[in-house]
Structure formats: C-alpha cells, structure tokens
C-alpha cells in the first residue's frame, strides 16, 4: 500500500488504536488535515485553543490509561501547546503531540510560523523527534507511542515538516507491530532480594505508614495496593495524585498528606518508624521541610523511575520496578509465608492515630449564612454517589475537591498536580467526557481558573459534552489571597477578581445552561437541578464564602507536625504548633 506522509500519519494513529485526535489546523498541517478529511477511523476534535487540545488529550489519558493524541500547527500552534505538554510531563501522562513544522528546506531561516518546536519542548517532554524523511514517519510514530506509554509515561512530541506530508509523494506503508530501542529498555521487575528485605522491614514495623502516589494510578496497581494494605492492616495515606488509588471510605485510609493533608496523615508521617512510598516521588508539597521529614523512619521506595529514588529524600531500600508487579510479589510473600505483623504494636499505633483522627481536622462551619465551598463539594459527592469523574483547576477549589469529594476508584480524580496549571479543568473534562459519554463528568473550578480556557464552552457545544461545571466563585484568586492573608499581613495584592462576567449569561451565550446559587438553603436543590439535566452542559456558579481558607495547612518549609488547623476542629489548637 502506497500512502502520502499525511495519510501515513493518520493511518498509523488508526493502527495504534487511537479514537480521538485533539487538534487545531494551520498552514503547516494542511496536508495532514486533508488526510483526516478523507477517513473516519480517527475522530478529530476541534478545540478553540491549542492549550485545550493538550489538556483534553491529557484528561482522556488520565481517565482511560490510553495515550492522548494531539495535532497542532507550527509556530504559535506549537507554542500554545507547550503549557499542556509541560502539564502532562510533570504528572507523567502518556501523550503523543504532533506539531507541524515549516518545510525542511526553510528550517532555520526564520520562515513564517517557524519555531524550533523540538528545542522549545525538549525540557518538558519524555522525548521528541523531528521527522525528516517520509519513509520514517510510521516507525517514528511507533517509537513515539512506545516511549510515551512504557516505563514512567510522559508526553512525546513528533515534529513534522510540511514537505514530508506532501500528498504527491507516496511511499509504501508498513506499521511495525513491535519496536525495540537499544537505548530505551524500561525496567519492569523489581529486585527480588530487595523486595524480600522490604517485606521483612515492614513486618517488623511498630509504627508503619504506607504512602502511595500517582504511580499507582498510572501503573494500574490499585487492586494490588488494596490487597497489600488489607493484608498488612496498616494505615495508608495518598498524595494529591494518588487519590482514588485506595478507597477514601475505607477505615485504613487516613486522607491525603502534605501541605493540605489531614492532621492524622501528617502526624503519622512524622511519627512513623517504617515508611513505604509506592509510586510517589517525595514532592516538596508532600515532604515539607526535608530535614524534618519522617525523622524516625526507615524508608522503602518503589518506583519505576530510578531517578525518583533518593532524589530529595535518601531511602533505605530502593526498589526499581513496575509498582503492580512489585506489589504482587510482596503480597505473595506476605500471604504465603505465614508472615505476621507485630500485632500488639500495630494496635497501639492505631490508638495513637485514632487520637489524631478525633481532632476532626476537616470540620468546617456548618451554620454559616454563606455557602461553604466544602459543603458544595460534599453535596456534589452525594448527588453523584461518589462515582463521577472529577476534573479540577488550581487553587483552593482544587484542594477542597481533593479533600471533600472522597474518591473510591482510581482514574477519577483528574487534576494538574505537578505543574499546577490553571485552565486545565474544563478541557480535561472534555477529554474524559468523550472517552466516557455516559458517565458523569464534573469540573470543579474557580472563577479565576475557568476563565483561562473558557473558550472551550464552544467545543463542548459542538460535541454535545454534558459536563457539569461547578465554579466555587469566591471572587478571589483564593489560594493567592490565602497566602497573602497568612504571610503578607492581608495585603491582597491583585488577588481580587474584579469585573467578573455574569457566568450564567456567559454559559447561555455559548448555548448551555447556567445556574447561580447564592443562598446556602438553595445549594442542594440547585446542584440537584444541574445534575438532573443529564444531556446538557450546566455551568453552576456558586457564590461562596470569600474568606474561607484551606485547612490544614503546612506553610512552605515547615515540618509535618507544624500544621495550621481550621478554627473549627474539635479540640483547641496546641498554641506551640500555631503557624507563626
């Protein structure tokens, strides 16, 4: 079969099993768009901004576990995509981004819409390619998907000059079944000796703690993690990215850890004697002050990426490998070897933990005459039975969504944890809704963040995506305001959102439904009304308490036992642990 470069590109997507291509056309990709026009295997989704194409592909990937695919033109198309590529890179999301490039003959001449896409994206991709020969397109695409989806996943950019896709030049098409690369052979199986030592260490622990992260979700290891935790009966906390890897309603679950983690999780981190980190990377939002991180603990770390191990925190037993495979092996040793934990010590440990839990750190004022954002998230949880796909933006609303939604399953919580990209939520929700047309998809956002990709309301109309946008509208860049309240003596420099649009009218202008909720008494009924409109996008503008803060909070550079707690916790605060 002889095909042109443009046709090869699209055909290779089909052969790779790609359902959706998120893109935006332009000069350098016109040949490719022509090839798209003449087929209907791969469905092209026309976004309204290239940033949204990358976030939508990213959301699709996070929800399905399959790689997201993007097509943008050269120059501004590529630069607009960079934010989304970096977002995916920071959270290790598999993605293949095809960027058009000016014709080979003029590369380097500052041609119209030329940028060095390979150079610009290099620091925020797992790998990138510039294809200079039409005969290499199929093989390069295969490599791109292979690299993006294996090992520690990540985005891969394929830059394709226009002349390479020329419809007049046809070459034989062969999509390779398999590819091997001598320079890239990700490790899968963990070292058995290390695994045995780790299990011994765990079984001898008196105050153990399990800390799991996004790697468990990405590595499809939630089932293995559940067995592991239940086999041991040890407390488990997860990172922001790991939410859903273990069911939030389970009694062994302690809530999230880190900057906005629960009191009990952070206190237990500080006091534990053995810590096992599973598919987590000791991010600074998790560790707080490095010098005081888990001061008494021996640390075991399972990760597929050797460079994540002992990067910031030195560990005692490193295990490089696929998390699911390593956990299976651990579970096997624990269940078959008649192995016992130190039952008495563990019971005593749970007593201590339950004392911390009694503080009820997630309490908030339930009698306020203002709408509390936490209540809004809790009601969304109830209405959706905790089974929705929830995307989010960045700010206070993101933390409240993480803290109060209660994720039971993996791949349901979709947020930009690593890069913290405002504008992520709505386009990511589009990717999720396309993948799962019959599921409930909620975007919990702020009035600041939603305006960073608001144009996608138009895309949602075009493809009939019935996303529920829940805007926790505090008329502030709330997270910025919170830091200014705490650390800048309430000097609210440019964190107030003036001249906000009427979001109800805005939603209507885009052809959707808008609902505003201002009174706490209307909160439940308003949200019920929104979710009852099954096949419509509903923008719910919830006017929330402007001054509400996210608690608990560990200030930057403080240790886990130095939390700032909500004034609504059950026990009075220990004044020595007050934030200065």
């Amino acid at each position, binding site marked *: 079969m002889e095909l042109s470069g443009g046709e090869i590109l699209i055909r290779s997507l089909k052969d790779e099993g790609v359902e959706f291509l998120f893109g935006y056309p332009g000069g350098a990709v016109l040949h490719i768009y022509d090839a798209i026009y003449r087929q209907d295997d791969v469905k092209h989704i026309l976004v309204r901004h290239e940033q949204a194409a990358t976030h939508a592909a990213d959301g699709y990937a996070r929800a399905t576990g399959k790689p997201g695919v993007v097509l943008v033109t050269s120059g501004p198309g590529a630069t607009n995509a960079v934010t989304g590529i970096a977002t995916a890179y920071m959270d290790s999301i598999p993605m293949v981004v095809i960027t058009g490039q000016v014709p080979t003959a003029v590369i380097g001449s500052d041609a119209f819409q030329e940028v060095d896409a390979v*150079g610009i994206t290099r620091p925020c991709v797992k790998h990138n390619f510039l294809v200079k020969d039409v005969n290499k397109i199929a093989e390069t695409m295969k490599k791109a998907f292979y690299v993006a989806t294996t090992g520690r996943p990540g985005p891969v950019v394929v830059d394709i000059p226009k002349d390479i896709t020329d419809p007049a030049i046809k070459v034989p098409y062969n999509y390779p079944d398999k590819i091997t690369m001598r320079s*890239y052979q990700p490790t899968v199986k963990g070292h058995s000796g290390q695994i045995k030592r780790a299990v011994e260490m765990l079984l001898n622990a008196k105050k153990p703690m399990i800390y799991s992260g996004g790697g468990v979700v990405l590595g499809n290891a939630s089932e293995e993690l559940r067995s592991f935790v239940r086999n041991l009966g040890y407390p488990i906390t997860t990172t922001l990215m790991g939410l859903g890897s273990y069911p939030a309603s389970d009694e062994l679950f302690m809530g999230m850890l880190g900057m906005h983690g629960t009191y009990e999780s952070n206190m237990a981190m500080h006091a534990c004697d053995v810590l096992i980190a599973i598919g987590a990377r000791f991010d600074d939002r998790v560790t707080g002050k490095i010098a005081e991180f888990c001061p008494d603990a021996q640390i075991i770390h399972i990760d597929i990426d050797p460079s994540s191990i002992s990067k910031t925190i030195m560990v005692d037993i490193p295990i490089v490998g696929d998390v699911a495979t390593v956990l299976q092996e651990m579970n096997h040793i624990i269940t078959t070897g008649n192995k016992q934990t130190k039952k008495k010590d563990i019971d005593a440990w749970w007593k201590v933990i339950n004392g911390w839990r009694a503080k009820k750190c997630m309490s908030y004022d339930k009698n306020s005459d203002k709408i509390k954002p936490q209540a809004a998230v809790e009601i969304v949880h109830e209405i959706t039975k905790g089974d929705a796909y929830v995307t989010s933006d960045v700010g206070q609303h993101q933390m409240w969504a993480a803290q109060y939604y209660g994720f039971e399953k993996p791949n349901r919580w979709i947020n930009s944890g690593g890069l913290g990209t405002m504008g992520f939520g709505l386009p990511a929700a589009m990717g999720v809704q396309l993948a799962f047309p019959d599921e409930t998809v909620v975007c919990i956002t702020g009035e600041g963040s939603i305006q960073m990709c608001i144009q996608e309301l138009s895309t949602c109309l075009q493809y009939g995506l019935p996303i529920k946008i829940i805007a926790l509208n505090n008329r502030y860049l709330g997270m910025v305001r919170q830091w200014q309240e705490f650390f800048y003596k309430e000097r609210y420099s440019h964190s107030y959102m003036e001249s906000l649009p009427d979001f109800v009218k805005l939603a209507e202008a885009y052809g959707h439904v808008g609902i505003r909720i201002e009174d706490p008494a209307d909160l439940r009924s308003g949200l019920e009304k929104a979710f009852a409109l099954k096949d419509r996008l509903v923008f719910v503008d919830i006017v929330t308490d402007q001054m509400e803060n996210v608690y608990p909070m560990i200030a930057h550079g403080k240790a886990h036992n130095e939390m700032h707690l909500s004034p609504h916790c059950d026990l009075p605060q220990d004044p020595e642990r007050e934030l200065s």
Partner: protein
Amino acid sequence: MRHIISILIENEAGALSRVVGLFSARAYNIESLTVAPTEDESLSRITIVAIGTDQIIEQITKQLNKLIDVVKLLDLSDGPHIEREMVLIKVKAATMAQRGDIKRLSDIFRGHIIDVTTSNYTIELTGSGRKVDSFIEALAEHKILETVRSGVSGIARGDKILHV
C-alpha cells in the same frame, strides 16, 4: 568530588543538546565536555567531567540514563581508568631568558613547542586534567596569551570496555 562520566549516545540530531540541556535545567556543575564520533558511526561518545557530592553525581547519572538517546553510561571514576586532556597554550616568549625557561618547563612536562614566532611559543601538552592544571600553574611567571583545553577524554583500564 570530581567524576568522569562516559556516555555512548545515539548519533542523532539534537542528542548533544539533550545532555547539555539537562545540566543547565537541573543546575548541575559541569567542568568539561567532549563529544566525538566512535568506531560505530551510529554512536557518539560524550565525556563529561562533573563535580558534586555523591548524591548529586548519582542523580546526574540517573538523569542521563533516563534520556532516551543515551545507550550506555559509565562513571569512570568508579574504577581504575586513564584520563587525558590536551592543551594548546600560546605564551609570550620574547627574551632569551623567557625562551629558555619555557622550553625547560615544557620539557619537564613532556610538552612540545609546536609553533614559534619572534615573540611567542605555542605549546602542545597532553596529560590528566591535573597535569594540565599544574603546567598552567608552572607557567605563572610567564604571560599566557591564550589557553585552549580539549576537555577530558577517559577510558577504563584493563579489559573493561564501554560498548553496546
């Protein structure tokens, strides 16, 4: 500690910039870097001299290994190895006294004077980075007009080889 890291990398466009970009993005200290083709034309050899604590060097080698184009990597400083660097130095040699002293120093360090004008000598010298440093120090009394160092090349001693 100073480490000599030897890398076999795919001879692809942009491969070098991935290595260099890594050092700048992660703020690692690099003392010298050399790149050249190998006997296998699909591979290039990069030799990097990097300075850092053991933890930093470990991160550097892990991050380099993570680059998709890197085929193999060896920290030569982990075992017995040979290190060589070449330097070309142009030094002022106008008087008989200067000429005599520079010639003597060059002989002591087993350098060669490879170009001569009425006012200067150009010396070629090969040795470990430290030897090159010592030679430059030894020339302190003279006016060095230009120094061109090649950066370090290294190879393991004995049977150990870095190959694919």
